[in-house]
């Protein structure tokens, strides 16, 4: 159903539940990795692939809600589907406010869990894609010289070559050369595309 590269992490102290979840997720082609405690998960290097976490609230040691708090500051973040044998409303509200995808009470309907897991993985995939794009733009921007960055900043604010030359105290021809170079390095085919890239990078407007 989803990409073969995705993986579902499961944290539940009950091995039977972990096994049953693995079997159920396996029927839709999802791979799982099982952890008995929150600490076990935190101590493991997770593979860099679209994934989500199916998390029991009641755990020995660090609870499910504690783990959610820990992971909120983690890099990369991971979407969470909570499962619990007895959840109350305040607990559910807390989990959902902190960004949980879903909060399911055991025993849950298989369709509910599978949909929640799929939604979580899609969310993670989109987030990963966004993060990768941004990283590439950063890499390109890093490759610019100081002068090229100055010229780029002025170009995206709509300055003409003549104005840029006057601003930087150089010739129009030199500005033209810098401009061609940075367009090539940033892999931008138009000024409009360059403006979007600058926005994505969150570049500061030129100082006046």
């Amino acid at each position, binding site marked *: 159903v989803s990409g073969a590269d995705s993986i579902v992490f499961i944290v539940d102290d009950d091995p039977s539940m972990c*096994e*049953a979840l693995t079997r159920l997720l396996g*029927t839709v082609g999802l791979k799982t990795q099982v952890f008995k405690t929150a600490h076990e998960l935190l101590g493991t290097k997770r593979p860099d692939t679209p994934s989500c976490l199916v998390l029991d609230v009641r755990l020995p040691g660090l609870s499910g809600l504690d783990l959610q708090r820990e992971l909120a500051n983690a890099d990369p973040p991971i979407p969470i589907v909570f499962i619990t044998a*007895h959840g109350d409303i305040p607990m559910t509200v807390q989990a959902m406010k902190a960004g949980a995808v879903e909060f399911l009470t055991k*025993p849950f309907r*298989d369709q509910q869990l599978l949909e929640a897991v799929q939604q979580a993985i899609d969310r993670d995939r989109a987030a990963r894609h966004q993060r990768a794009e941004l990283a590439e733009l950063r890499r390109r921007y890093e490759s610019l010289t100081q002068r090229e960055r100055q010229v780029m900043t002025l170009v995206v604010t709509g300055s003409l070559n003549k104005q840029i030359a006057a601003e930087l105290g150089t010739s129009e021809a030199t500005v033209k050369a810098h401009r061609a170079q940075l367009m090539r390095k940033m892999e931008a085919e138009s000024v409009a595309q360059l403006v979007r890239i600058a926005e994505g990078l969150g570049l500061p407007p030129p100082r006046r």
Partner: protein
Amino acid sequence: VTHRQQSGPNDRRSDGARQKSDVRQPKRAEEALAREILNNSANLISLKDAEGRYLFVNRQFEKTLHVRQEQIRGKKDDEIFPPEQAAAFRANDLQVLHAGVPMEFEEATLQDDGAHTCLVQKFPLINAEGKVYATGGIGSDITERKRAEQALRESEEHYRLLCEGAADVVISINESGQLVFVNPATDSARQAVVRADVGVAFATKDSLRAILQACAESVVRHFEAALARIWTPDKDHDVLELQASAGLHTDLDGPHSRVPVGFLNIGQIAKERKRLVINDVVNDPWIPDKAWARNEGVMAIAGYPLLVRDSLVGVMTFFSKSSLSTETLDALASVADAIAQGIAQKRAEEAWQSRQAELARVARLATMAELSASIAHEVTQPLAAIVTNGDACLRLLASDRPNVSETRGAVASIIRDARRAVDVVARVRALLKKSDVDRTPLDLGQIVRDVLALVPREVAGHRIVLQTSLADDLPPVLGDRIGLQQVVLNLLTNAIEAMRDVAERRRELVISSRRYDVGPDVGVLVAVQDAGVGFERGSLDQLFEPLYTTKPDGLGMGLSISRSIILSHGGRLWATPNAGYGATFQFVLPAWKSQRP
């Protein structure tokens, strides 16, 4: 005038002589007889004309004042007596002459042995024309009586001072039983006695009504009240409810059984929180039922707000057949204060008790909630795994080419988890049964005593009459102390709760322990017998079922848990309805055979 006056009797006498000459002789005899009577009177008798000249004095007059008839006749007072006396005599005579009616005077005379006082009846003599022509005087010596009166007054004053200053109680009651005198020490003594009665009432009686009735009766007895009453405000402080009435009326359901705050004198006392004193009930404008007061002879009313730290806990009224002195009013205020303090303390105790009961109930519920949450979690885990494996199973089977080994694995897991759920249930039951590890030889009598020490407040609070019959020579049993304490406590609590609504008979609770041998087997029996609502024979089987309860707030776990504890000790627990009221719950445990390994 003189002539006419003097001639009057003569005229009359001559008229009579003329008309009836045959009676002259008897008339003279009559005069002699009259003179004889006058002369033998112990009173001082005199006759004077309008000018104040003596016409006649009798022998007692002659003797007492040492004047002779011949000496005094025709003379005036100032010629015979000292000037001051004479002036006083003449002034009194003039009053009678002027008024023309008999009058009474006290006249002082100087005699051989000093000053005497005479009570003199002076009267006018009137002639045919209706004119006063002479005055007569009949005096009696009241010197002795005067002295006696003076002595009595002095003596009374003397004793009054003594009584009022005395620390002892002095009460004077007249022949009809009415109180005529009370010394201030009496008030402080009565105050002390009644305050002591109030203290005893609060310490020994349970219901506020009975306590306050005892207080009112003590007030009536010791302060000779016609009526004493005590009201307490209802929950919302809107209405005063009559709680006690002693004296003339003892009925609590009469017309003043509920008085709205602010209405009537009673309601005003509650509203304004000020003492009310009416010492002249019949003439007071604020007394609506004067006929009642008049008929019962009620003269004074005092009403006191019962206050504790500015909060009103009641009103006391006091009706008296005599007026109330400041000392009595202050003594009553002190009594009112004692009653107020008692009520406030009683109320605080009641609040504390109901809080304790509520706390115990909540604690029990919390324990149950915790236990059931824990059981629920333990059972839900395998059930959730079963459901998930079942779902996986269906999905696997729905595939075009079912993965047989994976499907078989799912079914195997389902069976395994179902067994696990059964194990959890068995573990919970084992938990209730308790294990053998904690078992020690125990004295069941001591366990009963330990539990009884925990519940005195429950017993007192529900007015339970507790009887114990605990044998001293009980063989020990092997068991879990806390578990068995729980059983005994549970049976006691059930018995107390079964009697909660019993009002028409004594709430008797009998707890007994004794040896109980069945054939060769030695055992110990503990029985808890109540006089409560009991149970129907038909419900006997249900009694020990979990979640069976007849109590509105009961959980229905107590007897079921108790029985499993007793069963786990190799004993048995059963219930029987009593011949009269209530039921008996009892259990038997086998005695510990120490010689056995």
